[in-house]
């Protein structure tokens, strides 16, 4: 007997009971019956019923129905191809029509072996072709971007890709042109599909029409392994599968954590894996040698040298962390340096805090929030791209999204947030004490105890909080800020490429750098120890939700894992440390964001429950390095926002296919400011601040607030905060 919340129906003679509102395709799956689909994808919005693959017979309705458009109703009797000749004929017809113009590309098509069209043709389609006319042809494949290839002949016009571009990423770049049998997928004027989420269309495409250029001809599905792990390039921590073949990573796929990423990836996480194989990757330890520059040394020698440097620093040791180390790595470094050497000083690019644990919730909460307030000057898509997709979804679901640069909320917004039971605060900018300020705000708005109300701070590092907490857990003891610094330990590529850390290194007597790439630390480090990538490590990360997620090593790195040599080095200082991530995690469990064991974290990690709000203690986390800006006397009329674009960083810089996504040498100007200065879109301009200037191209934006300009960090050189912009002569 069905309840008010469920419905009971029959599919192919099987009775099934499902919650009201369940779609028929899911209902059938629940009953163990397949309704084949192509265009149906709930994440793209309401079903469209376009491809006609899902035709089923419903008692009482003479015409075949598109199953994907139907919702399970009480007493419905459905027969699929398995039980209905009419439905089988309909599905067979659909496949015949699709194949009529589909090229016989299987032997050379990357999708072969993991292709829904192949699979469904086997199960429901005709065994032979009756098509004797020339099939429609196109030039193929066409690169619609350096990362995506389009084969219009293979395209079955299911419109999944265009619906993604329009209704999920909302970038409006991938569209359908013409009508009827002349329809084709294209971008505007053959311009590349340049958007942070473009790669998702590769996974969405049910045939080999949209394929990855990186993966072209690289492997067949039966030759690969998909290792479940988590992306380590931003604080979202999308769940991914690393496809490996013969010990090398060949591509990254989404693994779909419904609460975190909904099955989407940004192009950085998807396409940046070639950074593992960059030409300037360091394979052995390197030591600075006078006159010769750098020389390779053995690991034994390297550890000896490291020990000597550590002992020789007289306790005046500072560690510069990247925030992209695993929790275990940071803990191991902490044990070595703090316990073994009493060197408690560390710097991180940003402050971190656990204060937001009182208001934590899955990112999916944003997607159905009624009110979302995004505060801060940095674009969400640059810091935590998938969060931008959640925000867009909130808007599509009828929620209101308010974006403002200023940190203080006006009283009207405050009262609306206070009154709501479904509101989300998002802090996307610098400062804020790692979320402590946001937590204060959330607390003052009464978010405590309201599961629909949540607050997220978007960090600048992928695992800053995990690193900070692991470092703190490694020992007791206070920071000293030694002056001058005897030894600076630079951990990770991000730290090695940070100008603030570089400034510290210049003042330090000696430097040890842990880095993957030659270009970063050679020239100013005394000893360089080769590092690994997140794709090569076992370990855990804490994402911006406060969710602990587990990284799994997908390929064996060409250099030892950090835990392996840190534990060896630690031995020399009397610190016992396991080289195995799982054991290190066990030591830490309960002290870093979760009480779960390593095994319990699992493949789709759960989010721990909220903890009661505690006003955070002041200065409980490593300090940020001193700011690079100095007060200026020149008063320009415009305020410069330097931002770190999504497609930046040592990994991205080493992937040529992603170069086109990196920001051009541009300055973004508000429309009114441009008008007043008679600057048109694309004009060459000079951006001046006290004592320095930069030549850039103007990009006029109607969305930017007047009085501000935006320049990507890598193009902003030494510009100060107040600038003036004039047309170049």
């Amino acid at each position, binding site marked *: 007997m069905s309840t008010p919340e469920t419905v009971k129906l029959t599919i192919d003679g099987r009775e099934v009971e499902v919650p009201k509102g369940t779609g028929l395709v899911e209902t059938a799956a629940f009953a163990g019956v397949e309704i084949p689909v192509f265009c149906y994808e709930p994440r793209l919005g309401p079903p*469209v*019923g376009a491809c006609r693959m899902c035709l089923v017979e419903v008692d009482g309705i003479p015409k075949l129905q598109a199953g994907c*458009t139907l919702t399970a109703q009480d007493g419905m009797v459905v027969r699929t191809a398995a039980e209905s000749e009419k439905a089988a004929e309909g599905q067979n017809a659909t496949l015949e029509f699709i194949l009529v113009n589909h090229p016989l590309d299987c032997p050379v098509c990357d999708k072969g072996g993991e292709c829904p069209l192949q699979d469904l043709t086997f199960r429901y389609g005709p065994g032979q072709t009756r098509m004797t006319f020339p099939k429609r042809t196109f030039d193929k494949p066409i690169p619609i971007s350096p990362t995506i290839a389009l084969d219009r002949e293979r395209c079955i016009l299911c419109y999944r890709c265009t619906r993604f571009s329009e209704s999920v990423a909302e970038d409006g770049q991938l569209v359908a042109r013409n009508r009827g*049998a*002349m329809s084709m997928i294209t971008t505007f004027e053959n311009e590349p599909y340049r958007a942070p989420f473009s790669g998702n269309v590769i996974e969405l495409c049910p045939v080999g029409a949209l394929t990855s250029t990186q993966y072209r001809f690289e492997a067949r599905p039966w030759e690969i392994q998909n290792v479940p792990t988590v992306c380590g390039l931003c604080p979202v921590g999308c769940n991914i599968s690393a496809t490996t073949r013969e010990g090398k990573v060949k591509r990254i796929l989404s693994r779909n954590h419904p609460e975190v990423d909904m099955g989407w990836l940004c192009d950085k996480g998807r396409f940046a894996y070639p950074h593992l194989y960059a030409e300037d990757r360091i394979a052995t330890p390197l030591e600075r040698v006078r006159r010769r520059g750098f020389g390779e040394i053995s690991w034994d020698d390297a550890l000896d040298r490291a020990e000597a440097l550590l002992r020789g620093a007289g306790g005046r040791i500072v560690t510069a962390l990247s925030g992209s180390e695993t929790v275990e790595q940071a803990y191991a470094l902490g044990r070595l340096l703090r316990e073994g050497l009493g060197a408690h000083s560390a710097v991180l690019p940003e402050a971190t805090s656990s204060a937001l644990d009182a208001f934590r919730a899955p990112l999916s909460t944003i997607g159905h929030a009624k009110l979302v307030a995004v505060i801060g000057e940095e674009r969400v898509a640059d810091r935590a791209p998938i969060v931008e997709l959640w925000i867009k979804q909130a808007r599509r679901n009828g929620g209101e999204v308010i974006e403002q640069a200023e940190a203080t909320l006006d009283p009207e917004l405050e009262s609306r947030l206070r009154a709501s039971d479904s509101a989300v605060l998002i802090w996307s900018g610098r400062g804020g004490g790692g979320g402590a300020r946001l937590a204060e705000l959330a607390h003052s708005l009464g978010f405590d105890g309201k599961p629909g109300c949540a607050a997220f701070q978007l960090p600048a590092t992928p695992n800053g909080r995990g690193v900070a907490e692991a470092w703190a857990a490694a020992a007791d003891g206070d920071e000293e800020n030694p002056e001058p610094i005897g030894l600076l330990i630079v951990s990770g590529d991000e730290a090695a490429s940070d100008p603030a850390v570089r400034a510290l290194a210049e003042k330090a007597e000696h430097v040890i750098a842990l880095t993957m790439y030659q270009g970063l630390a050679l020239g100013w480090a005394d000893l360089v120890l080769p590092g690994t990538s997140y794709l090569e490590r076992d370990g855990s990360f804490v994402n911006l939700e406060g969710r602990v997620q587990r990284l799994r090593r997908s390929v064996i790195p060409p250099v030892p894992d950090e835990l392996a040599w840190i534990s060896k080095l630690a031995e020399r200082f009397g610190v016992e440390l396991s080289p195995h991530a799982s054991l290190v995690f066990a030591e830490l469990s309960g002290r870093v964001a979760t009480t779960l064991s390593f095994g319990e974290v699992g493949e789709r990690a759960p989010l721990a429950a909220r903890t009661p709000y505690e006003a955070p203690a002041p200065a409980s986390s490593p300090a940020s390095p001193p700011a690079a800006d100095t007060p200026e006397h020149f008063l320009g009329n415009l305020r410069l926002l330097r931002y770190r674009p999504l497609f930046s960083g040592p990994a991205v810089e080493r992937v040529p296919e992603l170069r086109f996504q990196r920001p051009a040498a541009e300055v973004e100007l508000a429309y009114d400011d441009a008008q007043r200065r008679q600057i048109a879109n694309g004009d060459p301009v000079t951006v001046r601040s006290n004592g320095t200037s930069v030549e850039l191209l103007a990009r006029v934006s109607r969305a930017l607030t007047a009085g501000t300009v935006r320049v990507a960090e890598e193009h902003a050189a030494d510009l100060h905060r107040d600038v003036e912009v004039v047309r170049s002569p």
Partner: protein
Amino acid sequence: MPARSIVLAGADERDLTKFDEYRAAGGFSALAKARAMEPQAVIDEVLASSLRGRGGAFFATGRKASFIPKPDQTPKPIYLVINADESEPGTFKDREIMLRVPHRFLEGALITAHAIQSKNVFIYIRGEYLAEFEVLRAALDEIRAADLLAGVTVVLHRGAGAYICGEETALLESLEGKRGQPRSKPPFPAISGVYASPTLVNNVETIATVTPIIEMGGAEYAKIGPQDSTGSRVFSLSGNVANGGNYELENGTTLRELIYDFGGGIPNGRELKAVIPGGSSVPVLTPDQIDTPLSYDALAEAGTMFGSGAIIVIDDRACMVQLGLRVAQFYMHESCGKCTPCREGTRWMVQILHKIEDGDASQADLDLLLDVCDRILGKCLCPLGDAAAMPVASYIDRFRDEFQAHLDGGCPMDGASSLDNLFAPVDQHHHDPVPDGAPA
């Protein structure tokens, strides 16, 4: 049966494009009458008239209006959208209505808006009808100046050349500024139409008929014509007939009466060969069937459909294979491309028909064509697929010998057909070379 002037009443005697003439002839009295009635009462009059949609679907108009939620049942605005996208081959009656009795038509729009309590009317008029748009715009300005709008906004929205936008959900998509591809139903426009709001979509002639219905009363209107198709219809007559044109006749008039009594019969000493009774989307009839009354049930019984009310007369100079090809080319050109069977199937039909017309086809090809039509039928997202498959299948069914003769060596008319070597729009796409078997 005599002509019956209801929608076009008075248009021969006076110039009803002039506001004052229309008013003098009794215009806008129905509007005043309707506005003095409760909205539901207006719907009841339409229900009483048994008026059925004149666009082609022939759905009971009063019933369709009663599906619209009342204002207290929905937080969204209620919209009336009028389908003036008339593009069904053979049909030109809405054009005549808008050209000759624009105020009567607009009056019907305002009456209907009152009936469903809508303050927002869109008229989607096919882009090619420029003159008609100008006439409507002038008439609307006059109505506005005469203060007859009563707070109702009427927007004239021009289409841009796409037959599929005559399908009501595709029209709504186009009105929303998108590619005009139909939507799955449910949800129906009455619940979620334009801007996801309750929307009533009606054809021009339907709306224009509402005015006289309110004038004379629904029950009076229901006395006219057969019960399954009350009232009159403006029939579009064209093809191999002496006097092509629009004729408003009582429903139930026979094809013979229309073609011979009003249309003047077949000119040039030719013989009648076939009749398409409801626009190109309906199955063809043969000369032995021309005593069929022009009504919904009678035509259904005869194996065809009332359709858009367009009667195309075909004489013995026309090759039915070439007709099939031309019709298939139309649907291939107009297919929106959303659903697989229509998009791929109409093109395949054209390819096979070319082969048959060229004399290169075998029996298997003819069987294949019938099977392709069958595989399209009933499987598509919207009626366009059926509209391609059904007529072509009917030509093969009713003129089998002619198709067989082509298999045995090409068109027996050997170049003398009126439809010989016809150049269709699909043959001139130059931005995408599509080898579809068309002769170079």
